[in-house]
């Protein structure tokens, strides 16, 4: 279901993706499919401890094994001072990033890389790992963010000092940062409230769960040129990270992105790439390929933060929210940089608030360093605030969508973190959800309930570059640098086709690496169709301008007298199609554009879910699911729907099953896809979508980012549905069967 306004020729249609046939025939080359002549295979030795000092590493026995070509440790990485780098969706201190690549003096989590081996095949490399002797002095560990903040907690990073509201502290700590957003008078706001709800929440560490494990193949040439092939969300980001971590000029590094098997934010930071490069150099400049096992992916890459969140909100009888307060503690993993800042931005972003205070804490714990995960920090925050909003509506006897409508932000309102909203579509999205047949359908049956929740994400613009060439037959080759994770070749080519007035089939897009196109930020922050789409719009305008000039020269008339529309050039009754003109070109026509657009509009989603709770086993079944979202303008509606459906599915997994489980020694005990339980086809119903099109005035085609918003509401929507089905307010994620059963038991004890 789509509501639409403007009509376009190409935009809004559903053509097949340009890379489709390669991907259904098994021909597409992903990172692990790369093979080079003389290639070696690398493997990583990882810490069995959550927190330990490395006393010594002895690789001599491994080096004597036949077929072993090189072993590296942190000694092989250049020493790096403190330097903050912005890597798309994450800001990192490069010294910490280097320590995360290979542990220097201490290991900070189970799975922390300690050494790496290159050998003739993967089996020999694995045998060699077992021959490396590492002596550890095990230290006390801390896994929980709240505990890590306590005075007697083990300290992970001796040099870490709290950035307390902009001022650096002077005592060792695990709290990297305390941030605050404030407005109005909180006490006055709560005094005006007729109802106040305050709850504390906990959410577990979860993983992006992309199906393709991390991989990298690298060749370090004798002339110190470094070549890398890998699946990544951003080839230029890999290039920059490698330049910093290896301390070599950017121009000496060529990164060629392969097809990528999912990222969700987790394939921005490098893990294997620098190791493969160093092993290549040490192994006599032979190419080295490395791929992670699934266990390594779970222990050592990406998760997003577990969190403790307290929310207090008050509202008047008429349904006006009078005050809102939140405290968010996010576990960053071993090094600073949780998405708590984004969480603080999301938590009350849906509502007009005169009085608010939000405090966020970024806390290091002995877990893998958190990396970006689809709307980083947003799901945690919305789970807390949207549950409290639901309870306020319930206590006031107001329909939960109506309650949200009465408080919803609109153009001109200010976000809790400061900026003013431009054109946004929250109200339209709430109205679309309220009038959807799902919301109006009766829900009957025992232990069934319907929940709703709203969610916000700010989106991102980033930098994009693209180049296009007009071929002599009038078709156009498009070179772009945004790796295609979910059909973006199609959405980008469609925007160029629309701009040029050509059919989609006449545009052939290709994704290339750092050597072949101008700079591109990562495919992340829901930015690609927005930002790279804008770049090809500029490319298209340049091409049309040049072609118009050529038409004027052909007719020998002033360029101003040539009209251009729908791929046809016209002058005084003469007409020439783009194709005809292309055939007459003497000097080729090519155009490039680089953009850094700032007016990316935020998006809002409203999700409706029906659940049935098995009160004996605690299992929650999703009966029906609808995701409505303000998508700006859907370029390729099928892929926009896919983003909503995929985000909802990930959010449902986060809500019901997914969590990192550690033993008492701080070791991750569920590092497999059997025990880290992601949703299967059997766990989900069809996911209905409503594409609400409130065009973003900050984009030539009205595009807003769509990929991240849909993971923000699901956990709260499911929790609110469970409450209506079984009468328990769930405040912990995941809402797994054991937690549901425990909550029901507490409820019946209290009732008795």
């Amino acid at each position, binding site marked *: 279901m789509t509501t639409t306004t403007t009509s376009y020729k190409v935009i809004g249609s559903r053509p097949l993706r340009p890379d489709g046939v390669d991907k259904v025939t*098994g021909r597409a080359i992903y990172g692990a499919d790369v093979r080079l002549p003389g290639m070696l295979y690398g493997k990583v030795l990882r810490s069995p401890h959550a927190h330990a000092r490395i006393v010594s590493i002895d690789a001599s026995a491994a080096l004597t094994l036949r077929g072993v070509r090189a072993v590296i440790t942190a000694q092989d990485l250049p020493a790096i001072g403190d330097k903050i780098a912005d890597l798309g969706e994450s800001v990192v201190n490069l010294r910490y990033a280097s320590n995360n690549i290979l542990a220097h003096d201490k290991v900070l989590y189970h799975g922390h890389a300690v050494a790496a081996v290159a050998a003739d095949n993967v089996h020999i490399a694995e045998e060699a790992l077992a021959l490396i002797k590492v002596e550890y002095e095990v230290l006390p560990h801390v896994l929980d963010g709240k505990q890590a903040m306590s005075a007697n907690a083990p300290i992970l990073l001796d040099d870490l000092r709290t950035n307390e509201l902009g001022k650096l502290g002077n005592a060792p700590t695990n709290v990297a940062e305390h941030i605050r957003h404030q407005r109005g008078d909180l006490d006055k706001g709560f005094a005006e409230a007729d109802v106040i709800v305050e709850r504390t929440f906990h959410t577990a560490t979860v993983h992006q769960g992309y*199906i393709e494990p991390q991989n990298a193949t690298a060749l370090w040439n004798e002339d110190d040129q470094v070549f890398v092939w890998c699946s990544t969300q951003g080839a230029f980001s890999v290039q920059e990270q490698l330049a910093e971590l290896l301390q070599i000029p950017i121009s000496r590094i060529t990164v060629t992105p392969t097809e990528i098997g999912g990222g969700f934010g987790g394939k921005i930071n490098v893990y294997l790439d620098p190791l493969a490069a160093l092993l290549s150099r040490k192994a006599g400049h032979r190419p080295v390929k490395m791929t992670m096992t699934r266990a390594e992916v779970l222990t050592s890459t990406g998760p997003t933060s577990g969190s403790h969140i307290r929310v207090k909100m008050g509202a008047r009888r008429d349904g006006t929210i009078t005050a809102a307060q939140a405290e968010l503690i996010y576990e960053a993993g071993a090094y600073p940089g949780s998405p708590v800042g984004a969480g603080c931005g999301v938590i009350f972003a849906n509502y007009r608030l005169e009085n608010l205070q939000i405090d966020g804490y970024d806390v290091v714990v002995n877990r893998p360093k958190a990396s970006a995960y689809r709307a980083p920090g947003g799901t945690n925050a919305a789970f807390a605030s949207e549950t409290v909003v639901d309870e306020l509506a319930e206590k006031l006897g107001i329909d939960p969508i109506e309650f949200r409508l009465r408080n919803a932000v609109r153009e001109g309102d200010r976000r809790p973190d400061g900026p003013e909203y431009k054109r946004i579509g929250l109200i339209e999205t709430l109205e679309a959800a309220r009038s959807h047949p799902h919301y109006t359908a009766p829900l009957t049956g025992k232990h069934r309930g319907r929940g709703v929740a709203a969610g916000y994400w700010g989106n991102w613009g980033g930098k994009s570059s693209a180049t296009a060439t007009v071929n002599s037959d009038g078709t156009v080759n498009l070179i772009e640098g945004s790796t295609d994770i979910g059909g973006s070749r199609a959405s980008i080519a469609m925007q160029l086709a629309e701009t040029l007035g050509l059919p989609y089939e006449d545009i052939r897009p290709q994704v290339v690496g750092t050597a072949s196109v101008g700079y591109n930020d990562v495919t992340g922050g829901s930015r690609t169709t927005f930002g790279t789409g804008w770049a090809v719009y500029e490319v298209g305008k340049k091409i049309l301008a040049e072609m118009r000039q050529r038409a004027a020269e052909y007719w020998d008339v002033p360029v101003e007298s040539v009209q251009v529309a729908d791929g046809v050039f016209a002058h005084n009754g003469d007409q020439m199609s783009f194709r005809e003109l292309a055939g007459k070109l003497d000097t080729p026509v090519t155009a490039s554009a680089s953009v850094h657009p700032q007016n990316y509009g935020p998006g809002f989603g409203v999700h409706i879910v029906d659940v049935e709770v098995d009160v004996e086993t605690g299992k929650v079944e999703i009966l029906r699911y609808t995701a409505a979202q303000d998508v700006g303008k859907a370029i390729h509606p099928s892929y926009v*729907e896919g983003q909503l459906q*995929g985000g909802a599915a990930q959010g449902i997994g986060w809500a019901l099953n997914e969590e990192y489980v550690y033993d008492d020694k701080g070791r991750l005990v569920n590092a497999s896809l059997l025990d880290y339980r*992601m949703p299967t086809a059997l766990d*989900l119903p069809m996911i209905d979508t409503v594409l609400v099109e409130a065009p973003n005035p900050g984009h030539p085609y009205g595009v807003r980012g769509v990929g991240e918003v849909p993971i923000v509401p699901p956990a709260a929507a499911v929790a609110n549905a469970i409450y209506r089905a079984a009468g328990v307010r769930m405040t912990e994620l995941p809402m797994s069967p054991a937690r549901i059963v425990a909550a029901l038991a507490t409820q019946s004890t209290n009732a008795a």
Partner: protein
Amino acid sequence: MKSKVIVATTINGEELEFLCEPRQSLLEVLRDVLGLTGAKEGCNNGNCGACNVLLDGVLVNSCLVLGVEAEGRTVETVEGMASGGQLHPLQQKFLEHAALQCGICTPGFLLAAKSLLDHNPDPTEAEVRHWLAGNLCRCTGYDKIVRAVLDAADTV
């Protein structure tokens, strides 16, 4: 210990021989020895289905089969699905329904779905979901995959 075994087998209709170590999985042989990289490694322990192939017509996780077990048997991989210049209806429907985003799980889903339609040419949505429960997709939420399979069943 390093001695290799000669295995005679039929892959995508073609009789061939390959050399492998006894410890190598069929997945490793397909990808590293034979260059058939359509089967993907997502977990290497049978949880994700990205390495699905048909062994004597039976759907298997090729990471859980040894290369030497292919001796005298037939293996069908994603590379063998299209024929005569035509995509298999499942491949075509996956494209038309936008049933893939990143595409890494797609080869496994295609073979699992083919195996389903070989057994049950007219499955219900519930039967499709049950059959495909051994294949993980993290991008799509399965909606468009299930629709593509149901549509392909109508076509086949």
